[in-house]
């Protein structure tokens, strides 16, 4: 046998190689594929892991939003968000730069200490982001008030961060600041983290600002209700400071300023009439309400109800509701005023009667017949005035006690009106007042007490003249104008007396027909007259089954209107 040649050897190797190559190729290919699969699997695993943490993070979102929804202070919400990010995202620090009333605030939340360098670098990053957001290209350092929570400045502390995510803090179009989180190693490379931080922060800010808006609105509503109450309301906080006082309470207690008072100062203001300090302390301790009736404070009789304000059985303050008990007192005062006014009205004609009679007696030798006539006429007129007042008093007393009666008979109301206007014409002419009569056609004969209806007309006309008269008239436009009219309606006649006088304020209008109120609160209290005219007019009109009221005249003055039924 021949020795195998080298060629054979090569050939054999070649054969072997030829056989192995595909296998190797297959092996290598397999290896590669496996590695790729492993990688994919690893990736899937990582994705799953991040997905789980992502889900976990988002799962905790409702918690923070629930907290935030209770806050109206943006700063507090941002603090909460910073703390939240520290717990849920792998970061070294969260911070925010916020515009406040007198500059900027920079707050850093950390877990542990940081170096000054870290703090400064983070602040620069936040400032730079803020400036970029607002479009400020200057390099000027934003001066801030700086605070660190969760740790402090220490040179052995954390000295650097890796990666930053900054988000503008906005209220609609307004940029309020920047919020930043600073990473550890490469923790912030994941785009989901940025998404997470952005979404949460947006929700936190909008929830806070929206809640604040709602709260401010609600607060305003509540305040409006509180301020418009007829009851006085006070609230003392647990430190015995007056934390709330509405306008009525201010008026009752005679406190005019908005200073923050404590209970002993309030006690001093009310003086001896009510031991406020003792009561508030007692209610705060005992948690039992306490009421006091008819306490005389500042010229009023007031009743006080002190109530403990409890939250979860904990006293968080003492409230007081103050009611004005003075209605009776007020009525008594009104009666007194009315009496004083009536006395005044009786004294005036009596003074004239007495004085005029005395003059005639004393000076009869010196007096001409004209002088005597003047004074005798004064006596007669004043006696007539006295009689009118006495009759008015009697009428109003009858109306008040429900004993006022009218005797209805056929009455040509149009003729009555014309005649009355005729009587007044001379009087109004002398006072530069135009008196106009405006009666509908075909006015029916109605059933009415003629004398009493004339009394109503007289009362309305004399008032109109009294308030329309302007003294010396210099321009035609200044002339007084009284328009008296009659309108025929389906079942009634409507009669009105309109003047162009000063008009009547709305709050007085309602009280105008009230006996005592009118006497006291009339805007023209310096005018003479008992003010009973309208009370009696109302009594007469109502006794006829009609109505009487007052409206504003256009463009100025008042219109008194009353109706009388046909029957």
């Amino acid at each position, binding site marked *: 046998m021949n020795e195998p040649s080298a060629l054979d050897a090569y050939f054999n190797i070649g054969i072997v190689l030829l056989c192995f190559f595909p296998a190797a190729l297959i092996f290598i290919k397999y290896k590669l594929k496996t590695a790729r699969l492993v990688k994919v699997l690893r990736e899937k695993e990582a994705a799953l892991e991040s997905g789980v943490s992502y889900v976990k993070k988002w799962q905790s979102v409702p918690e923070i939003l629930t907290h935030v929804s209770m806050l109206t202070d943006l700063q507090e919400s941002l603090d909460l968000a910073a703390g939240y990010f520290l717990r849920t995202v792998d970061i070294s620090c969260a911070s925010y730069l916020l515009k406040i009333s007198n500059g900027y605030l920079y707050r850093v939340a950390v877990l542990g200490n940081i170096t000054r360098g870290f703090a400064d670098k983070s602040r620069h990053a936040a400032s730079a982001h803020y400036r970029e957001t607002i479009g400020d290209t200057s390099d000027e350092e934003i001066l801030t008030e700086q605070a660190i929570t969760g740790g402090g400045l220490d040179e052995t502390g954390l000295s650097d961060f890796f990666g930053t995510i900054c988000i503008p803090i906005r209220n609609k179009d307004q940029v309020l600041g920047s919020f930043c989180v600073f990473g550890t190693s490469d923790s912030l490379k994941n785009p989901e983290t940025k998404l997470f931080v952005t979404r949460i922060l947006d929700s936190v800010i909008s929830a806070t600002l929206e809640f604040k808006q709602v709260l401010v609105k609600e607060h305003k509503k509540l305040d409006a209700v509180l301020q418009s109450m007829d009851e006085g309301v006070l609230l003392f906080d647990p430190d015995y400071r007056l934390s709330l006082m509405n306008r009525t309470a201010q008026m009752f207690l005679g406190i005019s300023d908005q200073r923050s008072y404590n209970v002993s100062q309030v006690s001093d203001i009310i003086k001896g009439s009510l031991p406020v300090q003792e009561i508030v302390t007692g209610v705060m301790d005992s948690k039992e309400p306490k009421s006091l009736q008819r306490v005389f404070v500042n010229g009023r009789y007031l009743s006080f109800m002190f109530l403990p304000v409890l939250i979860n059985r904990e006293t968080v303050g003492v409230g007081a509701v103050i009611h004005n008990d003075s209605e009776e007192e007020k009525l008594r005062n009104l009666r007194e005023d009315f009496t004083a006014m009536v006395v005044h009205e009786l004294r005036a004609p009596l003074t*004239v009667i007495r004085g005029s009679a005395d003059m005639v007696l004393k000076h009869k030798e010196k007096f001409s017949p004209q002088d005597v006539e003047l004074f005798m006429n004064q006596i007669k007129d004043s006696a007539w005035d006295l009689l009118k007042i006495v009759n008015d008093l009697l009428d109003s007393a009858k109306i008040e006690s429900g004993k006022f009666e009218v005797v209805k008979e056929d009455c040509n109301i149009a003729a009555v009106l014309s005649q009355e206007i005729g009587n007044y014409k001379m009087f109004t002419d002398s006072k530069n007042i135009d008196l106009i009569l405006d009666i509908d056609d075909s006015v029916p004969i109605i059933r009415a007490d003629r004398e009493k209806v004339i009394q109503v007309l007289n009362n309305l006309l004399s008032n109109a003249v009294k308030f329309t008269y302007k003294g010396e008239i210099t321009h035609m436009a200044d002339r007084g104008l009284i328009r008296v009219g009659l309108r025929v309606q389906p079942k009634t006649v409507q009669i009105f007396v309109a003047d162009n006088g000063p008009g009547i304020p709305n709050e007085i209008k309602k009280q105008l027909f009230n006996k005592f109120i009118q006497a006291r609160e009339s805007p023209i209290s310096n005018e003479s007259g008992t003010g009973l005219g309208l009370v009696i007019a109302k009594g007469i009109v109502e006794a006829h089954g009609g109505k009487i009221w007052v409206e504003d005249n256009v463009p100025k003055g008042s219109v008194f209107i009353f109706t009388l039924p046909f029957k």
Partner: protein
Amino acid sequence: MKKKVLIVEDDMALFNMYSVELKIKGFDVLNVSDGLQAMSKAKDYAPDIILLDIMLPGMNGLNILTELKGDSQTVDIPVIMLTNYGSEDNVKKALENGAADYIMKYKILPSELSDKIEVVLGTSNDSDVRIAV
């Protein structure tokens, strides 16, 4: 020369009484029924004394008194307040604001009023002297 009296009073019957009485007693008398004109009349007429009603239409005599006492031209004219509305508050206010006296109209006759005017004019340099009413 006749002493001049300015009467600020809207009740014509009362004014007739006071003016006839005072004219008989030798005074010169001017009436203003409108409170708004009291001040200008006090300056133009330059009376020796003013009788001032408290209840004037649309105006309180006490305000006119304050105005009179606040003006150098009228500050020295003695003022007697007239009223039928007895309120101690008003009396006090009037005297504090420089009224020389305060008269309840119903209590005095016109002849007594002229006596009081003469007393006030005779003692008008001494505002502390009051006349019992």
